[in-house]
């Protein structure tokens, strides 16, 4: 049995729903934030995820980061040595999708590790008529950048847990791989 700890960076433009997703996940779907409250700097949320078919778990330290540029200088320091990355955009806001490349580059610059597990999340899929970013387009970009792709609707409470659980699993897998590597080096 092992309990891993992962520094989980939640990034993306302002108002795409990062905090709403994080709060839903933290509260197991009990807490949907109806009113917008801008995140100032970074909110840290802790939640332990059990890894299926093992007795292991991963404690996620979720760095719910402001999407406002004004806080970027502070966030850059707080992001040092990230473990996993969750990029969020709003499927009805093309600009937020275009910004993902910038956020990805910023977080990857904070690590020396050769592999940083990451996911891309298209949120607000409930806004069907207002959708401007097609699923295929986002999936392609995610694949090109070595990210897993998910779509969620925090409002409809659809899929909100999946990106978190997926990243916990990836991190656990990395640990197992690393331990094997260490054995082979000795």
């Amino acid at each position, binding site marked *: *049995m*092992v*309990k*891993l*700890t*992962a*520094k989980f960076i939640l990034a993306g433009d302002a108002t795409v729903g990062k905090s709403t997703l994080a709060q839903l996940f933290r509260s197991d779907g009990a807490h949907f934030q109806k009113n917008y409250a801008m995140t100032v700097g970074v909110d840290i949320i802790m939640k332990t995820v059990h890894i299926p078919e093992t007795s292991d778990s*991963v404690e996620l*330290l979720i760095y719910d980061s402001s999407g406002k540029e004004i806080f970027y200088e502070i966030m850059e320091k707080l992001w040092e*040595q990230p*473990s996993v990355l969750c990029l969020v955009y709003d499927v009805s806001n093309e600009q937020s999708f275009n910004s993902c490349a910038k956020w990805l580059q910023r977080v990857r610059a904070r690590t*020396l*590790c*050769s592999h940083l597990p990451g996911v891309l999340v298209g949120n607000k899929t409930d806004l069907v008529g207002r959708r401007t970013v097609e699923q295929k387009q986002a999936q392609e970009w995610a694949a090109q950048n070595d990210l897993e792709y998910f779509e969620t609707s925090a409002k409809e409470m659809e899929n909100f847990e999946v990106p978190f659980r997926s990243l916990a699993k990836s*991190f656990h897998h*990395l*640990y197992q791989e*690393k*331990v094997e590597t*260490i054995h082979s*080096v*000795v």
Partner: protein
Amino acid sequence: MTKVSDVCLSSCGATVVLATSSDEHYPPENILDGKLETFWTTTGTFPQEFIISFNGSARINKLTVQSYLVRNLKIEKSISKDPISFEKCAEKERRESLNCWILLQRKIYLENSEGQLQTEEFMLSGCQATHLRFIIESSYDHFVSIHRVMADGAMDSMSPTA
């Protein structure tokens, strides 16, 4: 007669009194068992640290740390009896320019040597310690391992060698 030997072994009474990570398959005790094949793993995020306590006071000439993927390692020592007061004194040391509690504080940038273990030696010229604190501040991967810490020296209860 005194013998200079590795005092950093569980068979010599050394123990790991604190470690910030623990996987039951790779416990911190593996650092002191004298074997390179067994190791302690860190389980995510940095910094990580462990404290080794000697069975009394030791005089150390040389420290050797064998590890994997460690980038920045800081070693501190204490001559305090109780390992709990160790940290308090370390904080104090930052405010005062020189303090008897911490005689050693080193920041070492280890070279990234993927594919092989790192062996780093630190010459300490007979300094005294009851506890050693190792702080891994950064790494080249999400997880690192410490295989062995060797301390060439002697326990103080024996007279020091020339």
